[in-house]
């Protein structure tokens, strides 16, 4: 079973990849853990707050085009072929 994580903007800079195919993960939390172990500190710093270890508010994740809070948050299960987009929304105008 494989899911595809797609990286945009700063997350692409942190991973130096457009996307990664990840096997053996069954929910969003385990996918993020695997991504951090694969891409290291630069990605971890972009994903998690250094003091609380919570996902930063600058991280937006869509699973197959749907918001996590419409699903089951970080416990959202990932099926084979799932597409997970990770991007930091920008705000300026």
């Amino acid at each position, binding site marked *: 079973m494989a899911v595809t994580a*797609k990286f*945009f*903007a*700063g997350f*692409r*800079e942190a991973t130096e990849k*457009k996307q990664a195919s990840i096997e053996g993960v069954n929910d969003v939390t385990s996918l993020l853990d695997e991504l951090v172990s694969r891409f290291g500190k630069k990605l971890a710093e972009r994903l998690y707050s250094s003091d609380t270890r919570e996902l930063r*508010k*600058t991280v*937006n994740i*869509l699973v*197959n*085009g*749907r*918001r996590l*809070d*419409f699903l089951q948050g970080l416990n959202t299960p990932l099926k084979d072929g799932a*597409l997970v*987009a990770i*991007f*930091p*929304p*920008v*705000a*300026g*105008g």
Partner: protein
Amino acid sequence: MIINGFGKTGQRKLKAAHVVVAGIGGLGSPASSYLATAGVGHLTIIDSQRAKLSNLNRQMLHWGPDVGRLKVESATEKLTTMNSNIKVDAIFEQITSENVNRLTKGVDVVVDGMDNYHTRYLLNEACVRNRVPFIHGAVEGLVGQLMTILPGGGPCLKCAIPKEPPKKPLFPVLGATPGVIGCLQAMEAIKLITGVGKPLVGRMLIFNGMDMTFDEIKVNQDPSCQVCGRQGR
């Protein structure tokens, strides 16, 4: 306009159209300029600020001598000079939950030129409620994002970005970044008005000037969305 699909009919549609440009800064400047030069007959520009020196790297409707002037006044002058055959209404107001309905109801398209999500969400909600297409854009550094919200026809801004990112005191922006996104917003508005092409609905475009890439993120409408979903209406 001799581009295939536009012609005299397309030009007449543009002439008859009324577009609101909410915010006349980095995004609103290029967006309104290309709407004016395309011949959109009626533009309403809304902004509550005065031009500052630090705006001039990107807000190209405001020039050195305009520092201190109302942005809507400075922009109206330039837009009506670009095209004297259009009507420009300048509204010097902050967009709030009290006036957003009045400012957007009954127009053909609203273009997002804001610099904060609080107001973007107000516009998103009002546009969905009044069934007015809303063209979202935002920028920071060399990164920009774009999505067209077609009420009843796809997801809204809340479906893509549910929570306001933390506020920052400053947004460093390379001037060309809102130039790119603002032009694309104008293009989306022109396409919607003329009925030409396929709008950016259900897709968020991410532009990254660092590696000069354009990517799309698929966005689905959710029945649970408080704004555009079945439970929200």
